């Protein structure tokens, strides 16, 4: 049965004041859904459930269908960072475990947690972050360092690890993608599913997987309708509102409340679009955003952009999950998950494929400029940005701002400099408009 989540008008107003923008009320309750997701995982040992940690592309659906509450690595990092809880974990990772500070901050967060478990330092981290150690690690490899994260965690947690190699690079034709998807499906059948069965002690529930995939499909279709409305001027929501709403598409999949959430989100956007209500009083700069929903600076950046009329509208990360949901077939779940991963979800993480997607987004959403946060510790997203910037300039005549940052580790972020650069960047857009 669907859980109910609500946000009071006071809670909505508080968020709007914080980010200086008229964000949709419906997204404000996502924070509570996130809390419930993590509470599920924390309770798992008491309820006799096995816990999985999932690294990389949304294979979490595979473990969740088997009844394993699953930490998704790209959900844990935002959970820590959005609430400014990441500090002690990074400190344990840097000072105690021994990582250099420019090591991937996702790796440091998760290794810091395992190390805290291993060395009895849980008292240094908040109770909310004391996620149980995994009984199984399932690793994709959209990013090469995903597997390092998974190996570090599994080896130190002394639990099994299984790899679902994300294998899109080198594909040129549709036939290439189909062949690779078949390899991925084999990995699921020969490696991942048996590992899950061994961890749970039960045969794999394919019917549950089909049911969850059906929900994911519904949610993704609703999401696509929202993204279509974002082409409106003014847009009814920002890319960050979508980013905040990713939980049901990447981390906690198949829950009926996700459909309710996105229906409400879509209805609110439709209503706004019909009335010409946007997120900002005046939408002056429609922007491409390259990178994650960057939790370390999310509110900060909105406070820099919104008062100046800037709205982050489209970006490859937020756009890459379960694209083309119409081709998801709950009757053939492994086959269609594999194809979706190989054909649509993994390519945007590779700069060679991402460049075309980025240019399409700029054109479709009629964007005025690009902000590309260059994560010092995340090479999956900082690779190729200079090339994208040049391409956007040549093709559309729009400028880009590339700014060193980090998705988690605030020691790599200089807010004052970011503010100055954002200001100058928006002035550059104005100057070009005057010139051309």
């Amino acid at each position, binding site marked *: 049965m669907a859980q109910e989540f609500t946000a009071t008008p006071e809670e909505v107003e508080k968020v709007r004041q914080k980010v200086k923008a008229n964000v949709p009320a419906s997204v404000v309750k996502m924070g509570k859904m996130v809390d419930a997701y993590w509470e599920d995982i924390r309770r798992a040992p008491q309820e006799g459930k096995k816990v999985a940690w999932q690294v990389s592309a949304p294979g979490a659906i595979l473990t969740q269908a088997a009844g394993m509450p699953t930490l998704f690595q790209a959900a844990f990092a935002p959970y820590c960072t959005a609430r400014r809880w990441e500090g002690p974990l990074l400190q344990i990772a840097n000072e105690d*475990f*021994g*990582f*250099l500070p*420019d*090591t*991937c901050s996702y*790796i440091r967060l998760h290794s810091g947690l395992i190390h805290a478990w291993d060395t009895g330092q849980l008292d240094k981290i908040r109770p909310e972050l004391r996620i149980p150690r995994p009984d199984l690690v399932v*690793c994709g*490899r959209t*990013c*090469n*360092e995903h*597997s*390092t994260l998974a*190996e*570090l965690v*599994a*080896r*130190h947690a002394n639990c*099994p*690890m*299984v*790899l679902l*190699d994300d*294998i*899109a*690079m*080198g594909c040129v034709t549709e036939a290439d993608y189909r*062949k*690779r998807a078949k*390899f991925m499906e*084999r*990995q699921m059948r*020969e*490696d991942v599913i048996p590992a899950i069965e061994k961890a749970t002690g039960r045969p794999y529930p394919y019917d549950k997987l089909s049911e969850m995939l059906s929900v994911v499909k519904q949610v993704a279709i609703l999401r696509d309708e929202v993204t279509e409305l974002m082409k409106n001027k003014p847009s009814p929501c920002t890319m960050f509102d979508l980013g905040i709403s990713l939980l049901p598409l990447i981390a906690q999949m198949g829950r009926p409340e996700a459909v309710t959430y996105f229906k409400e989100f879509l209805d609110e956007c439709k209503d706004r679009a019909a009335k010409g209500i946007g997120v900002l009083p005046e939408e002056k700069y429609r922007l491409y955003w390259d990178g994650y929903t960057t939790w370390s600076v999310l509110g900060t950046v909105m406070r820099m952009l919104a008062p100046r009329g800037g709205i982050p509208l489209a970006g490859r990360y937020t756009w890459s999950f379960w694209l083309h949901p119409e081709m998801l077939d709950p009757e053939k779940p492994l086959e269609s998950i594999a194809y979706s991963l190989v054909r649509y979800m993994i390519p945007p993480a*590779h*700069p*060679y494929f991402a*460049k075309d997607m980025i240019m399409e987004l700029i054109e479709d959403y009629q964007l005025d400029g690009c902000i590309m946060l*260059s994560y*010092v510790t995340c*090479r*999956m997203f*900082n*690779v*190729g*940005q*200079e*090339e994208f910037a*040049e391409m956007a300039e040549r093709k559309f005549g729009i400028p880009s701002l*590339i700014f*060193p940052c980090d998705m988690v580790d605030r020691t790599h972020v200089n807010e004052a400099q970011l503010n100055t650069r954002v200001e100058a960047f928006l002035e550059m857009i104005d100057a070009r408009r005057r010139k051309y």
Partner: protein
Amino acid sequence: MNGSLEQFLLATENPYRYVAEWKQKNHKKVVGLHPMSIPEEMVHAAGVLPAVIWCSSDPITLGQAYAPTYHCGFTRSFIDDMVRGTLGFMDGMIFHDTCLVARGSHLAATRHNPPRYLKYIHLPPSIRGSVARDLFADTLEDLKASLEELTGERITEQSLWRSIQVYNENRSLLEKLYRLRRTKPGILKARETVAIVHSSMLMPKEEHNDLLKRLISELEKKAAPANKRVKLVLSGHFCYPPRADILDMIDELGGVVVDDEIFCGSRYFANPVKEAGNPISALFDRYSQKTPPDPTKVDTEGKWTDWGDSITGVVRRSGAQGVISLMVKFCPPHQEWHPDIKRVLSGAGVPELMLQTEREAVTLAPIRTRIEAFIESIRGAD
């Protein structure tokens, strides 16, 4: 000895000139391979020269605009080469997913002076399981077909086995050289050993084998220098050779490198291909070897002690007294595993110094001080 060694040093001193001149003289194609794991034998079997792409020592200029400063020097150097067109003599390039920034190198190669033949292959990161083996085979068959299209010549099973045999001979000779170095510490300078291995990545293997045989024959007759130097193992340093000035420092300050597990060292020639069965399957068997542990690949059944244990093994077999971990700055595969390496070496009582190295000219004085102090601390302990 000077003849062979001089040839090795000349090749590595200016790889651009060496490879371009080789191509001109021999009228054959050259295909650059992104380090570290592309099975060169397949490219060799196509009748072209497989040259492992190198890191330039020239200042990075135009390429600066296309990569952040916090990418490794090798990537920035390569991107600079592509933007400036200095690798224009190459007929082709092959890339794979060594690490994340290799993807940026590939993108740069497609956009800036791309070679006629440009291929990105997916080598399975997993070293276990039948899916990995089958995917590797599928990838190599695809690579084979594309090379045949480039050259207009078929790659037969016989030609692939011949190439494997040539490469295995090179591995065997380099292993012999390394055994000599272990038993006669100081018989070669650290920079000379690295140049010998590095030149193997640039020269036709047949020529390298001939030169190696001559060198080994001379070294076998040479006595080991009498010295009380501190014996050291070098660890890490992926994708390109360590800076010669740092290697020279080790020699100057009383150390002697007796073994290593760096890329331009024993990693390059580790594990011969088993000459039996299907050649592509045999290449996978080599590719998927667990020793030395390769952090750019995935071992789902590994232990966190694996790499540290492997380095400890190298220390024990060579009688070394310490390890210098040469970590390329901004090299995630190395830096992410280094804490565990340190823990294992410390537990095994193996002194270790970790040096982050940079491609660009940096102040060497602090590095010199640290190497000197490290060597003295080992001497003092002994």
